[in-house]
C-alpha cells in the first residue's frame, strides 16, 4: 500500500491524488452498489414475470416479459387513491414542518433573550426519546379530538415528531447569516420580521429544502401512525396499501412485486434529485 509521488498539481489529474488504486476503488464501489440494489432490481424485474414463472424458477429472468402485473396495479383505483393520500399528507406535513421549524429556529438563532437555551433544550429533548413510544396515548387523544380517520391525525403528529431535528439542523444555518446583513436591514428601516422575510428566507433556502425533504420522505414512508389512525380504507396511504395488498393476495407473488416496485418509485425518483441537497444540508448539523 504505497502511494506514488506523481500526484502533484502539474495537470488536471492532481484532483485524484490516489490514482493507483482506481481499479480497486471501482471494484469495491461496484460491490457496494450490487449489495444495495440487487434486491431492488430483482423486485422490479420480478414484476415483469408471472407467478407460475416465479414459482418454477425463483431466480430467473422474465421470459417472456409480461406487463400485465404493472397494468393491473396501475388500473386499480386503490393504488391512485393511496398515492394521492400519501401525497396530500406528505405535502401538508412538509409545509407545517418548514413553517413552524423556520420561525422557531429563527428566534432561537437570532434573538437574545432569557430562556433561549432552555427553549432550545426543550425542543432537542424530542431527539432523546422515541416519539413512537407515545403512539398509544396519541391514538387515544386523537380519538377524543375526533380526528381519527382524517389527514390531520397523521399530519399534526408528524409535524410534531419532525420539529426537533428540523430545529437542530436549521438553527446553526440561520445563525450563520452575517450580522452585517441584519444591521444593514436595520439601517434601511427593516425590522427583524422584515429581515426574516426578505433576507433570511431567501438565503436559507438550501437548509429549508433539506429539512423539507427529510420531512417529506419521513411522511411518505410512515407506517405505524397511519396504521393506527387511518382505519378508513379510502384514506390509506401507500405503505398501508403495500401491506394490504401483500396480505390480501398472498399467492399473487408477481402482483405483489409489481405493486411494491410502483410504491418505491416516487421515493427513488425524488431522492435521486435531492441527494446532493441532503448531504449538503446535513453538513452544518454534523460539523466535525
Amino acid at each position, binding site marked *: 500500500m504505497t502511494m506514488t509521488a506523481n500526484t502533484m498539481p502539474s495537470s488536471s489529474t492532481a484532483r485524484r491524488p490516489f490514482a493507483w488504486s482506481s481499479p480497486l476503488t471501482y471494484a469495491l*464501489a461496484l460491490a*457496494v452498489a450490487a449489495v444495495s*440494489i440487487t434486491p431492488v432490481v430483482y423486485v422490479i424485474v420480478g414484476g415483469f414475470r408471472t407467478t407460475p414463472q416465479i414459482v418454477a424458477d425463483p431466480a430467473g429472468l422474465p421470459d417472456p416479459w409480461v406487463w400485465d402485473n404493472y397494468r393491473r396495479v396501475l388500473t386499480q383505483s386503490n393504488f391512485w387513491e393511496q398515492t394521492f393520500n400519501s401525497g396530500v399528507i406528505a405535502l401538508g406535513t412538509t409545509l407545517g414542518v418548514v413553517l413552524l*421549524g423556520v420561525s422557531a429556529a429563527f428566534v432561537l438563532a437570532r434573538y437574545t433573550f432569557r430562556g433561549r437555551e432552555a427553549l432550545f433544550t426543550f425542543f432537542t429533548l424530542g431527539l432523546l426519546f422515541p416519539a413512537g413510544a407515545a*403512539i398509544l396515548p396519541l391514538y387515544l387523544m386523537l380519538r377524543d379530538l375526533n380526528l381519527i380517520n382524517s389527514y390531520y391525525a397523521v399530519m399534526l403528529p408528524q409535524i410534531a415528531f419532525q420539529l426537533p431535528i428540523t430545529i437542530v439542523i436549521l438553527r*446553526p444555518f440561520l445563525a450563520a447569516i*452575517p450580522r452585517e446583513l441584519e444591521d444593514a436591514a436595520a439601517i434601511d428601516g427593516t425590522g427583524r420580521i422584515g429581515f426574516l422575510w426578505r433576507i433570511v428566507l431567501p438565503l436559507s433556502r438550501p437548509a429549508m429544502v433539506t429539512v423539507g425533504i427529510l420531512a417529506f420522505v419521513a411522511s411518505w414512508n410512515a407506517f405505524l401512525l397511519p396504521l393506527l389512525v387511518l382505519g378508513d380504507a379510502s384514506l390509506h396511504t401507500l405503505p398501508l396499501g*403495500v401491506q394490504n395488498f401483500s396480505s390480501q393476495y398472498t399467492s399473487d407473488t408477481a402482483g405483489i412485486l409489481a405493486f411494491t416496485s410502483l410504491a418505491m418509485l416516487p421515493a427513488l425518483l425524488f431522492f435521486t434529485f435531492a441527494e446532493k441537497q441532503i448531504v449538503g444540508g446535513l453538513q452544518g448539523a454534523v460539523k466535525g
Partner: protein
Amino acid sequence: MTSTNPTLDLAGGATAPPAGRRPARRSPHRAAETRRKWYEIIGLTTPAVIVYVMFVLVPMGFAFYYSLFRWRGVGPPTDFVGFDNYVLAFQDPIFLDALRNNAIIVFGSLLIQGPVALGVALLLNRKFRGRTLFRLLAFVPYVLAEVTVGIMWKLLLSDAGTFNAFLEALGLGGLVQAWLADLDIVIWTLLFILTWKYVGFAIILLLAGLSNVPQELNEAAAIDGASWWQTQRHITLPLLGPTIRIWMFLSMIGSLQVFDIIWVTSVPAVRSLGASATMATYMVDNGFFARLWGYGNAVAVILFVISFVAALLFQRFLLRRDIQGAVTGRAK
C-alpha cells in the same frame, strides 16, 4: 424582566460574540422596542411549541397515567392497579424476549453498521469518475419505505423464495433455511434486513461529516509521504469523531423503537412467540390490537424510560462535547 438581563441585546444573534454589557438605558422608546421583541419571540415560537407539546409531550404524560389502570379503552379509566401492569410486563417471557431482541438490534446495528459505513464512506469520499452515481446507489435502501423493504425481503427470504433458490443453485443447498419462520434465527435475519436498510443512513451522515474535513490536511499529509491509510487513520478518523458519535446516538434511539420492518416481515405467530417481537411490536400488539390499553401504555412507558436513560447516559459520557458544538451553533 429586563432588569435581570443586562445582556439583553436587541440586534442580537447567536453568532454575535458575547456582547459586552451595555449600559441599561431605560427610555420609553427602548421599552416599546423590548415589548415588541417579546411579541415577536412569542408569536414566532408559540405554534411550534403548541404542536410539539400537544402531540409529543402530552401523550407521553398520558401514557404514564393510563399505565396505572386496568383499562380496555372504553370510558374513563377507573380500575386503578398501581404498578401492576409493569410487574406483569416483566413477568411475561415474551416481553423479556422483546427486550433481548431490542438489545440484539441495538448492539448488532452499532457493531456491524459502523465499521461497514465507515469503510464505504471513506471509499465513496475518494474522487473517482462516477462517484455521484455510486453514492446514489448506496443510498437506495435507506430511501425506500420500511414497509416496502420488509415486503421485499419477505418475498426474497420465504421458504421457496429466491434466496434459498440462489443457495441451491450455488450448491449450498445445506444452508437453506426458513429464514423468517425459524424461531432460532429469525431475529438474526431481521438484523440483516435492518442492516441492509439503515447502513445507508450512516453513510450519508459520515459523508456529510467527511466533506467538512479540510482537503488541505489530506493533501499536506500526502506530500509528507503519508499513505492513504495513514492519512485516514490519523487525520480523517479523529475529525469524524463527532459525526460517528451522533450517528451512534441516532442509531441507538432508532433501534430501540424499531417497528415497521419487524411488523411486516415476521409472521404474527413467530412474533407472538417472542422470537421476533420488539418492545414496539409488543406494545402495539397488546395495547392497540388486543385492546389492553393500560398494559400497552405501561409497555410504552418502559420503552420510553429505557430509551431516555440510554440517551442520557450516552449524552453524558460520549456526546456532550459534540452536542454543545452542534447546539450552540457557532457558525463557521
